[in-house]
């Protein structure tokens, strides 16, 4: 009896595989519920745009016209759900995955993709550990925390002021980045006068800011997301703190400008991996296409999700196959101009051109500085 059932199961899989030949499925995972759902949707839209644009071009693989289909899943930023939906994508027969958004979900999910031999490219999980697990097919299109943290730390200490206070939001992203900033500050000859902590649901930072105020820092580094960064800027002003303020890519958004209102000024800086959207090779154009298609502004990582999806499709084109085992080599040697810049990976799977740009707030927008 068991054997028949297994045979049936295999048959079932076989049938679905046969049907899937015309359509190549690409998975996307990010939190579409929960408090960073807006970022998850942003990523999904980025990947969707890439898939639809390639479809419009009419790609041929192995001599056949193919159509790409994006399957979007929600991991709710929860590691357990992350593995469940990863398995769902594997079952659905996806040939490659863009995602997940958080490091905390990407790390456990990468094990499942690795077992299934499916390449996964994250547009936003920046924990260095992700690409150090020894899996062959894990990539990322964004600079990792080490690259970015070093830049923030050094820039703060050398350009903004010697006495640095660091706040992080105790998420895998925030803490990982803050630790690298700490190192960068010291390497740049600065002094870390305070390390304070909050969480990614908080709106009140008065207590820790009051404490920081007493240490009289020249610059405050915030390692976390825009939803906390905006209110934090307001509260700095309310407490009469005049230190400069800098944050990483999680806060380097248009959203934070809205949220901070009149509390954001020329003393506010942020950094982002890669080039600014307006200076990305395809940035301006991307912004418009995105707006036109989804009626929403780019939040943060959509261009990286776009490039991640593009990397998968480009590699399939180059290898002339959608079989993960075959196109993996092509993916590893990716080298094309994406929205965010040249997409090429090092031997671990991290993006090679992991340049980091520093921005300063000026005239209602982020303006890239030359560092």
């Amino acid at each position, binding site marked *: *009896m*068991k054997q028949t*059932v*297994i045979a*049936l*199961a295999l048959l*079932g*899989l076989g049938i679905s595989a046969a049907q899937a030949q015309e359509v190549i499925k690409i998975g996307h995972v990010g939190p*579409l*519920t929960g408090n960073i759902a807006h970022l998850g949707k942003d990523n999904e839209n980025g990947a969707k745009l890439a898939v639809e644009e390639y479809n419009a071009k009419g790609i041929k693989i192995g001599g056949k016209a193919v159509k790409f289909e994006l399957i979007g899943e*929600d991991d*709710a*930023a*929860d*590691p*357990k759900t992350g*593995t*469940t939906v990863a*398995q*769902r994508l*594997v*079952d*659905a027969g996806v040939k490659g995955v863009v995602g997940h958004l958080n*490091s*905390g979900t990407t*790390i*456990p999910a990468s*094990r499942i993709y690795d077992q299934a031999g499916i390449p996964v490219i994250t547009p936003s999980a920046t*924990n260095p*550990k992700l690409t150090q*697990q020894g899996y062959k097919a894990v990539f990322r299109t964004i600079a990792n925390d080490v690259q970015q943290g070093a830049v923030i730390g050094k820039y703060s200490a050398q350009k903004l002021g010697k006495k640095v206070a660091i706040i992080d939001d*105790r*998420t*895998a992203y*925030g*803490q*990982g980045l803050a630790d690298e900033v700490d190192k960068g500050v010291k390497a740049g000859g600065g002094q870390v006068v305070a390390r304070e*902590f909050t969480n990614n649901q908080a709106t009140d930072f008065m207590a820790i800011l009051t404490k920081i105020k007493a240490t009289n820092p020249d610059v405050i580094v915030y390692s976390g997301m825009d939803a906390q960064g905006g209110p934090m800027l307001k509260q700095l002003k309310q407490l009469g703190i005049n230190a400069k303020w800098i944050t990483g890519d999680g806060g380097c958004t248009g959203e934070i400008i809205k949220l901070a209102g009149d509390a954001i000024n020329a003393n506010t800086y942020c950094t982002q991996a890669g080039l600014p959207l307006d200076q990305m090779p395809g940035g301006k154009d991307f912004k418009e296409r995105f707006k036109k298609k989804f009626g929403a502004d780019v939040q943060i990582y959509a261009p990286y999700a776009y490039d991640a999806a593009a990397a998968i499709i480009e590699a399939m084109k180059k290898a002339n196959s959608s079989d993960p085992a075959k196109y993996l080599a092509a993916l590893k040697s990716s080298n094309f101009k994406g929205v965010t810049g040249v997409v090429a990976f090092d031997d671990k799977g991290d993006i090679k051109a992991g340049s980091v740009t520093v921005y300063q707030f000026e005239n209602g927008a982020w303006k890239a500085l030359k560092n």
Partner: protein
Amino acid sequence: MNNISQAIPFLGSRNPKAALITLVVLVLTAPLFAGLFGNTWVRILDFALLYILLAIGLNLVVGFAGLLDLGYIAFYAVGAYTWAFLASPHFGLHLPFYVVLPVGAAFAALAGIALGFPTLRLRGDYLAIVTLGFGEIIRIFMNNLTHPVNITNGPQGIDQIDGMTIPLVGLELNRGLQVTDDFKISSLFLYYYVFLAFVVLAVILVKRLQVSRIGRAWAAIRDDELAAKAIGINTRNLKLLAFAMGATFGGVAGGLFGAFQGFVSPESFTLMESIAILTMIVFGGMGNLAGVIVGALALSFLPEVLRHIALPIQQALFGKVYLDPEVLRMLLLSLAMILMMLMKPAGLIPAQSRYSRADLLGDKEARHDQAA
């Protein structure tokens, strides 16, 4: 088991034996059927078993002893982290599961007593909020114990945790079982049967416990603590025992979770998880083992089924997608919780107010004794 099998429509009440056999066969072959729809469902089944284990444990505390615990996930966390400490490259230890699991269970039991002792005098909702706080405190410590010595690796979590290896035969569950060259049983199936073994063990244990002196004493405390005290029940020790035993189940489930998932981080042990488990037991029927199991199963599967059908249903009905599948899933899940409680406030399979020994054991002899 009897209770669940009797809940099968038509067959259950008419032919209990056939119903029971059907149930056993169903349980044993469940992953194969689930596998027909893809490995996702096997994985969901695996998680469902873990939730059943958790629900059984929490039911000991809430359902049997009447102590409302909103921080139960803390024990799950203790078990999972113990496994991560003792079997991962984090501290360079790689102990086998028959060492790690008992240690995790023991730590969880200690945590249970640590929570139980100061809260002995608290009642009802006061107890609920303190246990809720306890759960949050444990999670916050897991999230922050990196300084001055790195113990938990903070929000980054601990990865590359060893899977489970069955001794003697040397079967590594993570690798799966290579039967012939081109036929391999996936690790998901192996974990299913291992988890199932634990669940069966737990069910047997709890069933015996419920009719034992301890179980009856718990019921007495739950129904009326003062009266229980008056008839000479040592309420302090028994409450502590309930906390410790409930916690042990959580600890074991946590260890299994760590091994299965290969990665633990504080994000997995939030308040929402505690609430989810509590919801399972209330949904199923608090105090009734069969109900609790059905509740855990139902609420593990419901969100996933909704996830699966949300998109196609809308397309079929309106030819267009109005709501994102995950939004619809949350919507339906919350409605299901509300409507279910309105219609059956005591749960799917309610507990009886009084159980005879015979009811619980399905034991002919005992029934005979009573008749005599």
